[in-house]
């Protein structure tokens, strides 16, 4: 009896391992954002984004810690965390979505593919549907994904005081750069 249970367990594990080859992940993905105004340029970088892509369904998941965004100036980082995104209250931002034109991508063949990713972006306690363009590069069994898009702080209930409103762009440019590896289990 014990052996049957053990065998079933093994079978489930193996089945999972086979299935897992469709999935690619990274824990060191990069997300940066840029705000450019005549008054001041602000940029921040986050190098510890966790993301998973399922090549079978085209689903993509991203999660990022707000406090892990690093700015050039300590004061900018402080304002970002304390006044704008309130990272103590909302420590994470996440995106959950899928590639809408999955048939255009051949994950088994090296190449560069243009994709559109549609899903929900959650930040500062607000969830908004977004649709962004991106590129997927398949090379030697690894997947690289990149995207650039804009978000408006106001869409996520982030209020910026009038005094500094001119220093922060109405549309913040976000760039995403992920190097996925096959998920081994």
């Amino acid at each position, binding site marked *: 009896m014990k052996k049957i249970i053990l065998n079933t367990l093994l079978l489930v594990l193996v089945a999972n391992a086979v299935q897992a080859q469709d999935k690619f992940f990274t824990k060191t993905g990069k997300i940066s954002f840029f705000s450019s105004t005549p008054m001041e340029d602000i940029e921040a970088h986050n190098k510890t984004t*966790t993301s998973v892509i399922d090549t079978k369904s085209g689903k993509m998941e991203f999660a990022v*810690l707000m406090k*892990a965004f690093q700015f050039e100036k300590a004061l900018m980082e402080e304002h970002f965390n304390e006044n704008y995104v309130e990272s103590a209250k909302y*420590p994470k931002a996440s995106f959950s979505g899928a590639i809408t034109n999955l048939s255009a991508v051949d994950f088994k063949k090296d190449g560069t593919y243009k994709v559109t990713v549609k899903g929900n972006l959650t930040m500062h306690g607000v969830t908004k549907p977004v649709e962004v363009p991106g590129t997927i590069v398949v090379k030697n069994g690894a997947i690289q994904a990149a995207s650039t898009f804009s978000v408006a702080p106001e869409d996520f209930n982030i209020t910026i005081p009038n005094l500094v409103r001119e220093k922060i762009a109405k549309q913040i440019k976000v760039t995403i750069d992920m190097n996925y590896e096959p998920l081994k289990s």
Partner: protein
Amino acid sequence: MKKYIVIAFIAVGLIAIVGLVLYNKPHRNTATAKSDFAVEAPALLQEFTSDEAAANQKYLDKVVAVKGKVNAIAPDEEGNINLTLDANDAMAGVICTIPKADAETAAGIKAGDEVTVKGVCTGVLMDVVLIRCVVEKGT
């Protein structure tokens, strides 16, 4: 009258200097900062997975010295170093990013080594994330 103008000028100058100093306030230097907590990697992950809210309360923005076995260490294209500490979990660990400027503290370290990494805790995704890390000497 002239005296007031001079005083006004000095006051404005002082405010400008204070403003500039505040604006250019440096980042906290993890290398010289005293760590608020010293923990082992598996215990840290355990605290975050069992009660994330409480762990956030305790660790966020704090300088934490984490001891553990190096799972993986790799530089990125900009010269920053990603170091992962093993936490007795197949999927999760403690991810430490070491900025380029402190990269030499990780020189010679390879997977399997026991190290203590000091950094600012930013929370947990799957792994606990520490930024602005340095590898502590003498471990």
